[in-house]
Structure formats: structure tokens, C-alpha cells
């Protein structure tokens, strides 16, 4: 399987990512992608920016492990994960996961799986800066923990 992981400050192009996955093999029938972006309101608070911190030596290792698990579990031809770090504003892209397969169900499942595990396993942290000047580190959502637990339960 073709795989690429990037942790970067700059933005990404989804068209370039789709083309990259299609270049690898003409057997690709479908690519599912998820683009996560900064919302202007989170849990009722007006967000002015998000600061993304990560654990440099660890993050790519964790993401590679998630892609390995996805490759073993789904019928994948390729996958790309791009995650931005640093200061981001409402409307800006944070993360991209794209999964290519011969058939669509595997592409959807693998992309969703990688996003769900990224949320609970990849060493990124978000600090929210609000319009009122306040700052706070976000907490992991219970729904994110549940999503990973659901995949674990479905494993067999």
C-alpha cells in the first residue's frame, strides 16, 4: 500500500492528494477523504484561533501505526494523512485523511477508522483562544473515546 504522512505548518491541497493516490495505481476506484477545519464556535465559545502542539518524535510514529492497522483491516490501495501544527484560524484546514481503494465501502471505513484513531492516539493537542481573550486546552471528547472503542469491539 502507498502511504504518506506529513505533519506540517502549511496548508494542503486535496486535489494534489487525490492525484497522488491515483498516480500510484489505476486500480483505484474510489477515494474517501476527511478534511477537518477550525470552527468559529466550539462548545458555545467564540473561537478566535487554535494553537496546535504535538510531540515531534512520536506523532509520525503513531500515525504510521494507525495506517498499518488500517491496511491490515481494510482492502486499501493507499492512504495519506496530513496534520497541521501551529496557529490556525476559523475556516482553516487542520487535518486531512484520504484512503483509496478499488471499492467504496473499504475507502469509507478506512478513512473513518484512521480519523477516529488519530483523535485518540496521535500526539496532538489543541489550545483554543477565544474572542474574550481567554485560552484553554481542549479536553478529549467522550464521543471520541467511544468511537475508538466501537472499532475495537467490531474487530472480530
Amino acid at each position, binding site marked *: 500500500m502507498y502511504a504518506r504522512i506529513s505533519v506540517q505548518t502549511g496548508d494542503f491541497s486535496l486535489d494534489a492528494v487525490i492525484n497522488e493516490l491515483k498516480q500510484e495505481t489505476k486500480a483505484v476506484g474510489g477515494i474517501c477523504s476527511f478534511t477537518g477545519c477550525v470552527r468559529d464556535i466550539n462548545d458555545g465559545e467564540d473561537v478566535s484561533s487554535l494553537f496546535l502542539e504535538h*510531540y515531534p518524535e512520536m506523532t509520525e510514529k503513531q500515525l504510521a501505526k494507525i495506517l498499518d492497522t488500517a491496511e491490515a483491516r481494510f482492502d486499501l490501495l493507499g492512504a495519506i494523512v496530513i496534520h497541521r501544527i501551529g496557529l490556525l484560524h476559523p475556516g482553516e484546514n487542520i487535518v486531512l485523511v484520504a484512503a483509496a481503494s478499488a471499492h467504496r465501502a473499504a475507502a469509507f471505513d478506512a478513512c473513518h477508522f484512521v480519523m477516529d484513531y488519530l483523535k485518540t492516539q496521535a500526539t496532538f493537542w489543541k489550545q483554543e483562544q477565544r474572542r474574550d481573550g481567554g485560552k484553554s486546552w481542549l479536553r478529549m471528547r467522550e464521543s471520541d473515546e467511544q468511537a475508538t472503542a466501537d472499532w475495537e469491539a467490531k474487530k472480530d
Partner: protein
Amino acid sequence: MIRVKYFASLRERMNRGEDQIEVSGDQLTLADVLARLTLPDGQTLQLLSLAETMMLSVNHEMVDIDHVVKGGDEIGIFPPVTGG
């Protein structure tokens, strides 16, 4: 020598990005390491970890609190991740 790195809200609360601790010949678990590390108010990370979930890594792999560490290891201590 073991290097310990803190991230995000824990880094801010520790008021430092990392610590280094000496290891004797004894077997040391991560629980033992947490007992040796203190917040600026004197509270140990072991005590804090009872009240708040912390994630632990050794050499960039997630591990449990009973994991045994050795000289040269790099430990990461951080709150639950919130990327994506």
C-alpha cells in the same frame, strides 16, 4: 539518566518542558518515576495522575503505568490527545 518530556497543559503546569532523572540499579516503573516528579506546588505527578487521566509513552510508544523503564529511555507524559 532518563529524559522526561511534558506536553500541552501539563507542560504549562510543570512550568518546564522536560526533566532528567537519575536511575539507580533498581527496577523502576513509570509509577515510581511519577512519584519522583513534582509540580511547582510540590504535588507529585503520581498524585495528579489519580485525579486526572494522563497518557504515558516510553521511546515514543504508548505504555501503561506499570511499564519498567531503563537508563537512556525517553518518557513522555501528557494529557489525553485532542488533534484531528
